[in-house]
């Protein structure tokens, strides 16, 4: 049935994102390479999602709208997201038992949505809001 899903999100760095970052974090290219979530094919199907559709990602810390990318390789229950200001919005800042602040992995609710990808300007505004 189409709808929302709770997924484990793991962040990574992509080469195209690295290039776009060097050329400016406020660019459309950087947003296109960062504001995305790689979904397992089965998970995407269960949510009624296709490649390039928009999804809302939510955690207790924040919410962002990004573009869905459906992976060729299976990874059910797990989604991959470039590490960026978009993924940072979803992190809690909690420090784990071993003393390291969690930056790589979190649980998020993923829901198909419409509208527009969250802009970097919106993220900056949220960070600056008291």
């Amino acid at each position: 049935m189409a709808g929302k899903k709770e997924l484990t999100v793991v962040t990574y760095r992509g080469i195209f994102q690295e290039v776009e970052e060097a050329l400016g974090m406020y660019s459309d290219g950087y947003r296109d390479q960062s504001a995305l979530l790689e979904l397992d094919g089965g998970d995407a199907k269960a949510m009624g999602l296709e490649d390039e559709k928009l999804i809302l990602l939510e955690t207790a810390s924040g919410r962002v709208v990004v573009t869905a990318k459906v992976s060729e390789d299976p990874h059910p229950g797990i989604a991959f997201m470039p590490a960026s200001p978009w993924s940072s919005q979803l992190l809690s800042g909690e420090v784990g038992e071993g003393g390291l602040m969690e930056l790589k992995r979190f649980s998020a609710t993923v829901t198909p949505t419409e509208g527009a990808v969250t802009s970097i300007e919106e993220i900056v505004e949220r960070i600056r809001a008291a």
Partner: protein
Amino acid sequence: MAFCTGCSLLCDDIEVDFEGAKVKRTLNLCRKGRGHYDSLLVDRLAPAVDGSLVDIDEALSSAAEVLEGREKILLFGWGNSTLAAQKAGIELAKKLGSVIDDPSSYSQGLITEKVLKGELPTCTFDDVRNFADVSIFWGDDPSSSHPRHLSRFSYYPRGEKRQRGYEEDREAIVIDVRKSPTAQIAADGFFKISPGGDADFIEALMAALGGKIPKVEDKKRMLNLGTKLRKAKFGAIFTGLGLAHSLGGDLDAFFSLVGKLNELTRFSVIPTLGDYNTRGFNQTLFDEAGHVNSVSFKDGVDHGPEFGIAKYLDSCDAVMVVGSDPTAVLPAPLAKKLAGMPMVAVGTHRTLTTDGADVTVPIGVAGLEVGGTALRTDGVKVEFDAVVDSDYLPDVEVIERIMEAV
């Protein structure tokens, strides 16, 4: 030949022709490096106070004013700074009685510190190229983050004892949760683990190395891996953020595995660090204070997680960020705390951090507009010159001038 400071491999074989600051032709630069070179003309930081442009002298004196009279200053960043600027930064921390930290406090600092203490065997990339027959990439995808890692050192090249290169003489093993570009190169050498599954993988590999039956689904494959590693003549392990985070910062199991491997044969560890001179900062602070990050110079030398940015943002009263963009990287609640601080940002380009700073001070891009020295991620020191004309100040001069003014 020019250098590239696009990542901590610090490639030294770059040929480049410029027209002004515009790149006309390059040889040997990877895609990321080309982006780094092209960035000379994009989104450069300007001297500013409260968002209004000022001249560099006013920016420097305003920077000193932000810091003066504060009790609990955090000096953060430093991975994209030359060794001279890092040294000056530590002197500034001493003068101000402040805390100094870098992103290694939330990434691979523990591994680097073990290497610097001599408690984790290491080697240089040149040793890897010449001798390594097994390269393990653990939670590490250098094909994306350090694009020439495999071609210059760890997989493809022929070396002194590896004359036949990767086809016959060298094996790549990737342990990761995602089939990354490096994992795709490793093909059959890719071990896919579940998120947070590194501790179980280490346990299974320890069992296989000890001749016991590992508690994993594919026992035969794990036993084969154990045999392969036991038989390696010169193994290298390259660690990424994925390993440290999967283990939640408790790396004892990994350190035990490296110890076990070295009882059987030889394995060295080289952390794949992000910014071009992260290793330099960690080494410089270690030489000065005995720790690679999270150091307070308030009363002599004090060290602990309470002086890492994740915790210290709760109690500090001003921040100076140098060559780093913590606002983009830190979890939202911490980025918000940072945004609420009086802040000076020193850097080459406009970032989310510089946009939130009270004072911004621009510097030249190391290796392109200004010269200096740095440590490659394997600890080898390199010296680079400027290759284009520019009016930007070197980072060391900016830090020294702020130090004179406070």
